[in-house]
C-alpha cells in the first residue's frame, strides 16, 4: 500500500539536534520545537523523497533492530504531517491508521512514534513581570497589580466607580520588561 507515495522531510527552515534516543527539531518559521522519540525520528530520517512507505518501513526496522510494520510508518507520517515536519503531508490510501491499529503491528522494544512540542517564547514572555509598588499598573496580563500613585500622573485614567488606575496613552509607564515603549 502506498508504493507510489514518497514522503520527504523538511530540511529548509528547521534545525535538528540528535540525542541518543530522540531527535529535537526546531521549526524556524513557526518557532515551535519538537521532540521525536526513536521511532518517529527514524521515520523522519528515512523520508528522503525517494523511498516509498514499504521501503521506509524496512529501513526503519533495520535502524531500530526490530520489526516495524507499514502501519507504524503511516502513523508516524500522520503525526509528522500534523507537526508540519514534512514538505507535504501524505495521506494513507484507504484512510488514516489508528494508534490502536499501529500498536498491534509493532515489534517488541519499539515504541509507537511520539512527537511532543512546545512553542518557543518571545523574549518578553520568558521574563518575570516586575510590577513596582507606587508605580503604574503592569499591562502584562500576568501581573495586574494596582496603581497606587495615579494622582498627578497625566497618563492615568481613573474611570468613575473603578478604583483601579490604569495608565493609558502617551509614554507607557509600565515596569514590566517587554512592554511596548513609545
Amino acid at each position: 500500500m502506498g508504493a507510489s507515495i514518497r514522503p520527504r522531510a523538511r530540511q529548509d527552515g528547521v534545525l535538528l539536534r540528535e540525542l541518543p534516543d530522540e531527535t529535537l527539531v526546531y521549526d524556524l518559521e513557526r518557532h515551535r520545537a519538537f521532540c521525536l522519540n526513536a521511532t518517529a525520528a527514524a521515520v523522519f530520517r528515512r523520508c528522503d523523497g525517494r523511498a516509498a512507505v514499504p521501503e521506509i518501513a524496512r529501513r526503519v526496522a533495520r535502524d531500530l533492530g526490530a520489526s516495524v510494520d507499514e502501519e507504524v510508518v503511516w502513523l508516524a507520517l500522520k503525526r509528522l504531517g500534523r507537526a508540519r515536519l514534512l514538505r507535504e503531508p501524505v495521506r494513507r490510501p484507504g484512510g488514516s491508521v489508528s494508534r490502536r491499529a499501529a500498536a498491534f503491528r509493532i515489534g517488541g522494544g519499539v515504541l509507537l512514534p511520539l512527537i511532543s512540542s512546545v512553542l518557543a517564547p518571545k523574549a518578553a514572555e520568558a521574563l518575570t513581570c516586575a510590577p513596582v509598588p507606587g508605580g503604574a499598573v503592569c499591562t502584562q496580563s500576568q501581573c495586574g497589580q494596582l496603581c497606587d500613585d495615579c494622582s498627578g500622573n497625566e497618563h492615568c485614567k481613573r474611570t468613575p466607580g473603578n478604583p483601579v488606575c490604569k495608565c493609558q496613552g502617551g509614554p507607557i509607564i509600565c515596569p514590566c520588561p517587554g512592554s511596548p515603549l513609545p
Partner: protein
Amino acid sequence: MSTGRRAGSLVLDLCGVRVRISCDDAAILRQLRAALPARVLGARAARMQRAYSIENARGRWRLLVDGRLQARTRSREGLLGLLESDLTAYVAEQAPRRVFVHAGVVGWGGRAVVIPGRSQSGKSTLVAELVRAGARYYSDEFAVVDSRGLVYPFPTRLALRGGPGRQRLTAEDLGGRAGRRSLPVGLVLVTHYRPGARWRPRRLSAGHATLALLANTVPARSRPADALRTLARAVQGAESLHGVRGEAGGMIAVVSRAFSGRVAVEARASSGRGREG
C-alpha cells in the same frame, strides 16, 4: 581592577553585556552595585551596549534608557526595581556565550538543581526552602548556561511574595550562602505548586527536559540553534522530573534522594538536611 565609579556613573559587565548607569546620588549607585551580579569596569571601558540614567526632579524619579524615557515614579525603591528588571531582561537576551533560562537554581552536592518556570509557579519559594536547608543560592530568576552546559550564578535578590508585598532577600538573609562557581546540571525539576498536592513525579527524557527548558528560554527565538545545543548539552547526565508539588519543605527530601540516585516515582516525605553545592 579599578572601581569604575566616579561622580555620577557606574560601568558594569553582566555576563559580557556592558552598561553604564548614571546618577548623581552615590547611595543609589552603591545600592545597585550591591544588588546586581556584575563585574565593575573601569570608567573608560569601551563598547557600552546600554546606558541608563536616573534623574530626580521635584520628588519624581525618572529612568531613561539610551536617552529615552522608560519610566516615571514617585518611589525611589520602585525606580531601582524598574532599572534592575529592565537591565536583567536586556542582559538575558543579549548576553553572548550564555543562554538565559527563566528558572530558579541552587547548588546541591556540587551540581545544579534547575527549576524552570514563569512567574508565580512557586519556584522562588522552593529555591528559598532549599537554601534554608543548606543548598547554595544561584538564582531565583535565571539559569545562566554556557555552551558546555554549565550553570553560572546569577544571584539577584530573591523575590518572595506573600503578606503585603514582595520581599527581596539575599542568601544570607535565609541563613544560606550564594554559590560562586559554575556547576553541571544534576537535576531538572519541572513543577509548580498546588496546595495539598502530592509529589508523584514522572521522569522526563533528555529531549523532553530540553523542551521544558526551551519553553522558558529568553533568547529561544533570537538564537534557537544556540539555545537548543546549549540546553541539550546541559541536561545530559541530569535527572529530570515532572510533577505537581505541595509545600516546598517536602521537596528537600526529593532533591536529596535524586542526588543519592534513589529517585522514587512516588516520593515519601522524610526529614533530612541538604548539602551545599
